[in-house]
């Protein structure tokens, strides 16, 4: 194994795969658990740089309250929009059914 990560478990990978509706095989769970562990380990190193005097930020620019007035602007043409969809029906996007879910 390369350098140690933060310890993502095989079960956690299986859980994420289920949430993402991805079919992952038993073998792949082992592979991905190992790979994700390394990635998380690399990202975790950033935390070593964090210090009390550096406030966390989600933005590189120190802006707030970037707003637009409540004004209507033109929409896209529906035919054009649906032409880009894999499937359409009755003016709507057609998608596969979602298993075991309630509306």
């Amino acid at each position: 194994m390369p350098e140690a990560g933060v310890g993502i478990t095989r079960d956690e990978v299986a859980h994420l795969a289920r949430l993402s509706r991805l079919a992952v095989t038993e073998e792949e769970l082992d592979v991905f658990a190992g790979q994700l562990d390394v990635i998380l380990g690399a990202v975790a190193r950033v935390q070593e740089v964090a210090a009390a005097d550096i406030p966390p930020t989600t933005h590189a620019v120190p802006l707030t309250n970037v707003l637009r007035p409540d004004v209507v602007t033109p929409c896209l043409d529906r035919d054009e929009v649906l032409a880009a969809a894999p499937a359409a029906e009755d003016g709507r996007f057609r998608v596969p059914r979602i298993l075991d879910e309630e509306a």
Partner: protein
Amino acid sequence: MTTIESAADVAHRYDPVIGLETHVELGTASKMFCGCPTTFGAEPNTQVCPVCLGLPGSLPVANATAIESTIKIGLALHCDIASWCRFARKNYFYPDMPKDFQISQYDEPLCTDGHLDVVVDGRTFRVEIERVHLEEDTGKSLHVGGATGRIHGADHSLVDYNRAGIPLVEIVTRPVLGTGALAPEVGKAYVTELREVLRGLGVSDVRMEQGSLRCDVNLSLSPAGSGVLGTRSETKNVNSLRSVERAIRFEMGRQAELLDAGGRVVQETRHFHEDTGVTTPGRSKEEATDYRYFPEPDLVPLAPDAAWVERLRAGLPELPAARRARLAASLEASEFELGSMANAGVLELVAETVAAGAPAAEARNWWLGYLAQQANAAGVEPAELAITPAQVARVVALVADGTLSTGLARQAVDGVLETGSSVDEVVAARGLVRVSDVDALGAAVDAAIAAQPDVAEKVRGGKVAAAGALVGAVMKATRGQADAKVVRELVLSRLGAPG
């Protein structure tokens, strides 16, 4: 199916705890993060653009009016307004958002820690508001192949993104304790009052039937007096005020039956059925952490400064509770009478009638009595009747000065409702004037006596009660315009009977 136990019976053994999550679509002209219109009922996918379709390279910009509306809601609910907060991405894999995430707020809501008081059966219940946050509504899915348009049995789904991106405010209460057998009524009263507040603010059209106000009802039971919170169910699809009450009542009965039998309530999402009043299990709730919330990188933080918030506070309209208190004082009405007027939808009308000069009791009697009946018969709200409070006040004045009897006043009201003319025009056109002139009535009284000589004889013989038949004949002959009291006196004096 089995009969569900009443809320009162359940409350003997269990303390119900309710919680309500209400979603309100704001009435802005454009969407939350793009300029698409928000018109209800438009052709599917005609109100979409690269931003709300989540096309690569598009960027959201927050709608200033939606932010202000949310702050106003927070202020009306006595919340603290955050001086700094951020939007968050809520990630999930349903097709109702083309981006595969919904922009919402997570640990930094715009408004927190408020309350709304509601009155049920003369008792005031304080419903504490945990948070008010702003997010975007999702698209609408139509499930094809299933019998009821729901996912079970569906072959595929058709999605319309017109609604995706419409600003949506979520108002979440803290658990409401101590409501006992009144839990269903308190739940309904809360949503009713909240709707009044939102309508008064003018931030939403609050039409439950169109989905612009939607409600999720949480309910748990704890053994009476134990103080130990039970496991809650979350009921969705509660889309009318009456349904809020019914859903709580049903869940109280269902959970009590389960617990009585030594069973366990499962934490789950349930679905309310409007037609049967029953809830059924829905999808098992994913853990909150499964949504992998993180701060929305495409939007900068929101930082409402004190001046902005205070300007919005200064512009708030009078809130429903304050208005009711003011009207109560001006109408000299009891809490019960106020409740009756509010329920009948005539509170404002009565207040305006009083403002137009009518005594409070008269105004109340007209709107709760004859006018409410007319509205009911016509299938409209009292406010939709073709008579104004000022016209009702005019009718009241004409009765007070003796021009109209009660019967004539009703005829005058009927005339206004039918023709839309003014009260005085109707009175003049229909000759609705009470006749109390002895000379004018004398001939009619003589005619009635001549027509019923046997009755007249009885009255002469001392049977004063028989005079009623003669009075009735005169009233009929004068089309109700005669003053019945004067007629009676005339009849008795002509026949020499004691008056």
